[in-house]
């Protein structure tokens, strides 16, 4: 077996994106420092337009149904599952750059670094979805994470009306990097144990090794330990309880575009890799009961804690952090169903769809938060008071996104949640109970999502003025709203795309 052009072709989206990241970084060297004006815009435009190239490669791959899916000796698997996430990450790139443009311009003043870091992180995220080898996955994970650590601390000057925002940013960064390293350690320990019991780091080989694995005995316990540690490592990324505690602090402290990026890219990538490792690596097949239980417990606690604590938050980003914890809980319900009956493409596709909708919606919601921060510097819940009167369009878009997150029909969030719950329920066993817990959690979540909507529409605004809304952020918001509506109407095709991804995930296993 030799490396050939096919392998490069399979890797072409990642390569192109890396090239773009390098290009942006290099271009930044030639930009006049300090000033505003067209130069800053150029970088964003280059980054956005440049993403068409990886997108083109991804599309090329997607429309080549007979392509080989694995390359680089099985380290890379560019199957439909990976392509689904690649599209998602490229979309995230587009959304985040748009949403963050004015914030970066106003408060961070380091656009080159920011966009380059973002693109590098996206490369890592893409690799997390397409890697099928533990070492590669680990590298991808760290490639994703390092830029995030830096992004968290990029706010060097205080945002007006928001004292100590710079201090908070640094605090977020150090917390993030130290906790991230700890989580890497536990993940690695789990991977080491997995490697120990199977003798390989290639997921396919692990799966086949585990097929002949005899349950019981010390090896089984080591494998369980590996399951728990690996789950803990990824659980950190997806902020599942009890590995979630970093999220509120870092979400709050990091500059909002960074927060947005953590909440979508990092989480989606975490799920991509988590599902890949557990399913493609054959972990759930070997000890389904335990893995299922593990995930179900995490799901239950994530939903409940996330929703309940979100109610009492006063900082919008902190609230969104708990919201994202709860959303992770919903996704874990689907993952529990998947673990309960492995080779369950329906749950997988439902998860993929749910993640996609979550990403689109969250981008919209954060675009709203960022736009408000751009205009007023306020990032507290009460800063949303009477937003509708100050900026109706922003208020409507933001509310729509929040209601979609809350799962109020007929918005995409509700449809995807219903699909996810249906898929989970379909597995039988105790899953229906988990679904009912999820439904009750949806009721609780109303309190804070609709609470913001209440503030936006009902509360008295602190000042009766019209807010200037940055064009880029509102473009992101509009795109997100269009996405929400489109995903509601065309949820069918999206489900089919998710289904293809799911099928490829299982066909990787060979049967």
């Amino acid at each position, binding site marked *: 077996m030799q490396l050939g052009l096919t392998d490069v072709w399979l890797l072409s989206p990642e390569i192109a994106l890396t090239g773009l990241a390098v290009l942006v970084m290099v271009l930044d060297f030639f930009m006049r420092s300090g000033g505003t004006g067209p130069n800053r815009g150029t970088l964003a435009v280059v980054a956005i337009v440049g993403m068409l190239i990886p997108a083109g490669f991804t599309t090329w791959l997607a429309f080549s149904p007979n392509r080989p899916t694995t390359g680089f000796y099985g380290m890379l698997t560019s199957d439909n599952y990976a392509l689904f996430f690649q599209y998602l990450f490229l979309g995230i790139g587009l959304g985040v750059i748009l949403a963050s443009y004015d914030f970066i311009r106003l408060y961070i003043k380091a656009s080159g670094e920011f966009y380059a870091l973002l693109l590098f992180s996206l490369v890592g995220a893409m690799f997390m979805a397409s890697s099928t080898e533990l070492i590669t996955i680990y590298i991808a994970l760290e490639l994703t994470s390092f830029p995030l650590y830096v992004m968290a601390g990029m706010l060097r000057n205080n945002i007006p009306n928001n004292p100590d925002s710079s201090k908070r940013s640094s605090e977020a960064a150090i917390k993030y990097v130290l906790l991230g390293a700890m989580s890497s350690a536990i993940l690695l320990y789990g991977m080491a144990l997995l490697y120990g019991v199977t003798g390989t780091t290639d997921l396919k080989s692990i799966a086949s090794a585990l097929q002949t694995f005899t349950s019981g005995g010390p090896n089984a316990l080591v494998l369980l330990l590996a399951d728990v540690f690996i789950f803990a490592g990824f659980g950190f990324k997806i902020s599942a309880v009890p590995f979630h505690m970093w999220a509120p602090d870092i979400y709050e402290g990091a500059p909002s575009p960074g927060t947005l990026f953590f909440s979508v890219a990092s989480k989606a990538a975490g799920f991509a890799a988590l599902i890949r490792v557990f399913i493609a690596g054959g972990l759930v097949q070997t000890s389904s009961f335990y893995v299922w239980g593990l995930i179900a417990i995490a799901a239950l606690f994530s939903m409940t804690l996330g929703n309940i604590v979100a109610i009492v938050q006063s900082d919008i980003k902190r609230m969104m952090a708990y919201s994202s914890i709860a959303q992770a809980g919903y996704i874990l319900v689907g993952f529990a169903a998947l673990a309960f009956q492995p080779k369950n*493409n*329906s749950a997988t596709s439902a998860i993929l769809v749910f993640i996609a909708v979550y990403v689109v919606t969250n981008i919209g919601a954060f675009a709203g938060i960022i736009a408000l921060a751009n205009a007023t510097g306020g990032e507290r819940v009460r800063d949303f008071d009477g937003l509708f009167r100050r900026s109706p369009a922003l208020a409507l878009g933001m509310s729509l996104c929040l209601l979609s997150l809350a799962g109020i*029909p007929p918005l995409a969030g509700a449809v995807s949640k219903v699909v996810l719950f249906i898929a989970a329920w379909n597995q039988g066993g105790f899953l229906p109970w988990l679904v009912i817990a999820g*439904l009750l959690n949806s009721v609780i979540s109303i309190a804070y999502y609709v609470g913001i909507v*209440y503030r936006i529409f009902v509360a008295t605004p602190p000042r009766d003025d019209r807010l200037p809304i940055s064009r880029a952020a509102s473009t992101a918001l509009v795109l997100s709203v269009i996405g929400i509506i489109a995903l509601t109407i065309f949820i069918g095709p999206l489900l089919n795309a998710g289904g293809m991804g799911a099928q490829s995930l299982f066909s990787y296993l060979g049967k």
Partner: protein
Amino acid sequence: MFPLLTTLVFLPTIGALVLMVGPKGASRWIAAIFSGVTFVLSLWLYIGPLVGGSGTAGFGSIMHPAWSESIPWVHFAIGTLQLNIDYHLGADGLSIFMLILNALLSFLAIIGSWHVSNRTREYMALLLILETGVMGVFCAFDLYLFWLFWEVELIPMFLLIAIWGGQRREYAAWKFVIYTIFGSAFMLAGIILLYFSLGAQNGAYSASFSYLASHQVAGTYSIFGISIASQLLLFLLLYLGFAIKLPMIPFHTWLPDAHTEAPTAVSVLLAGVLLKMGAYGLIRICVDFAPQGARDFALPLAVLGAINIIYGAGCSLVQRDMKKLIAYSSVSHMGYVILGVAAAIGPGATNPAFREAALTGAAIQMFSHGAVTGMLFFCVGVLYEKAHLREINAFGGLMARMPRLTWIYTFAIMASLGLPGLSGFVAEYLVYTGSFANFPAQTIIAAVTMILTAGYLLWMLKRAFYGPLNPRWAHLNDANLLEMAPLVMLGVVVLFVGVYPGFLVDLLRPSLHQIIQTMGSLPVAGR
């Protein structure tokens, strides 16, 4: 064919969008025009089948709706999961009935809100979105679609109460939302359970009404070792959402608060159509799709219905706030719907005619309560606009200053307490006559309430409008033409239905007959 149902559902939303971009001063007119056109179009639902030559039999049943539109939406089969959700709208007699009621009341609500001057544009837009949501509920013929539409009204309603409401509007709005979402969560659970149970049983997965109505779940579920009949569990899960909406005791406490705090037109819609969503769901979803479960639960349902009736009346009796009094009277009146449905599905070898009478009564009560309570709320609204007070005892002798309002109020009160010749009597009488055979004791309780109803309504009338004029109110002016318009329109409808209910019964008969036949085909429990 012209997609009439889709038009009806989305025309108000389009109106809301036009409103948001249109000139600010014209928002009332835009809203009135859009809801008016919707109302006129909705009449075609009724006239169409008549003109089409199929006569009153052409209104169809759940299996053969007179109007139907279907576009495939989600058709997704992968692994063990088959997910089929269609954008399937349909309207049979029962739906047409509710659609027209909704269109009418929404239109009148907008007319009746002409005086709203605070954030008019948003107010009208929310009313229109509310109309869309309710329209969708009444003509969704796919269960998942039904659920999606079910919650559309939630946020507009929440905001309408929260922004334009009274003193405790925040509390009331939240209570409304949390209650509703809580119920609909269980409803969704029931829907999913029904979907999979039927699919697993018959091999075909569909949530379309015709499929669900023609196939029934069999067997039992086991929960923690407790075995429960499948249909009963389904019925209860689905019903929880409807029971909250209805509202049925003990899930009713959101209603007095919401009614009291909501602005007039919103109270009208709340009583007129939102509560009807619960009643409609009970008949259309619970009874049609889990008939055996419904029958098993008929006795508790009848008892709860009777409690609703007398409990609501009792609470009304001691209210001091006019709107709260009417709100509790809503609880009481909706009890007739519950009792009627319970009698229609009840066990016992009852003559199907009694069942049908009871169900017809329940359905007419849906209409009647909507129109009559709408009138009552409009009346209170007119009064509140002028006096800024709703304490019954603070008024007195208003008849001297507001004769027009007094007489229309008296009319509404008479309709509400079931005076013959007006629609409330038709409904109550049919429920009484239909349910006595199945549930005599509960019917007697309902009939006793007749006295209490007269008591609290007339006492309110007497305290507020009779006697010497309280000098505080000497400055009040009588209702003007704009305020009288919705009242008179509703009054005419109430009178017409009361004198010639055959008009509505013809519309409902095919739909309800279908249900009665299903109930008739069930094995009869020995009593």
